[in-house]
């Protein structure tokens, strides 16, 4: 009888371990869903900047200060249903251009800075993407 009682205690301890393991895991899973969306958005933003500059267009357009052309190039690279802001700063961190989307509500936002050094000019291009 004493042995059976001891095994019950072991079972209870194991069950408690499993329950506490689940309780630790559930917040991670919630965080995981958030992280996937966050990293997905970040990936989209980096991909947009990379795609645009792999042809040299981002560098040339920003150097020339052709902001409307820049926005028109970025727009097709951001999937439908996502919003973006585009901010361009000079080397002293003065804002020299901003494109702000009309949509104000968002769950979360990613900021992706692209530090452009081109023909002696420094421009910090920040693409903010949110859903």
């Amino acid at each position, binding site marked *: 009888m004493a042995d059976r009682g001891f095994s019950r205690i072991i079972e209870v301890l194991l069950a408690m371990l*499993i329950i506490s393991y689940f309780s630790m895991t559930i917040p991670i*899973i919630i965080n995981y869903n958030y992280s996937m969306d966050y990293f997905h958005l970040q990936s989209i933003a980096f991909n947009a900047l990379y795609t645009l500059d792999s042809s040299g267009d981002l560098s040339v357009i920003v150097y020339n200060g052709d902001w409307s052309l820049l926005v028109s190039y970025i727009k097709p690279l951001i999937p439908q249903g996502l919003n973006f802001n585009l901010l361009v700063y000079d080397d002293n961190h003065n804002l020299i251009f901003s494109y702000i989307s009309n949509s104000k509500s968002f769950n979360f936002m990613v900021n992706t800075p692209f530090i452009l050094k081109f023909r002696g000019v420094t421009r910090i291009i920040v693409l903010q993407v949110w859903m």
Partner: protein
Amino acid sequence: MFAVLYVALIYQLVYFTPYYGIGVDVSSNYIQALNLMFKRSICDALVFHVDGGEFIKRLNLNLHDIMDFYPLIIELSSYNVILKDGYVGASATLQVYDFKYRCKYTFSYNCSLGFKIMNITLSNSYVPVFNDVKMVVEVFGDSEVLLKPPVFIVSYIYNGGTFTFNPDYESLMDGRYMVHFVIPLNVHAFTFSVIDWRGVKCIGLFKL
């Protein structure tokens, strides 16, 4: 008891397998963007050097600016700069320690521009006392040099004054261009410059 443990194990496998998979995919876009930032920085430092500045000073400044925005430590392992008649180039190897993804990358870059005169012909111009010059020029360099057309500049000294202009040109195949301009009959030397879309400038002196 084992059934509970089994369910817990499956549960973990289902939820955590994609979690580890995503990290690899995401970092590739991030690294590609970083890669371009470094490459632009090296070309910018080369432009600075061609204009009389110091390559390494400018490059360190550029890399420092990137480190202000990203959790990185960037070490310049090696670099080399070449300036000669008809060719300029810079190469650099960077060791990058990334605190965000907890990994180390080694990047090697080359930014270069050169040209060769493949053929040059002189003939009488329809403009009196001027020669008609037609040159086939081959422009070469790193993989990005011909992403956008270059700019050509001809400069010569005549009667004590310096004349500089952009000649007419047409694109041929494989980075070759037909450049066409006129030059006074008694001018027997000129400088020919090519500037690529990144601002890298390469100069050559030619005698007729």
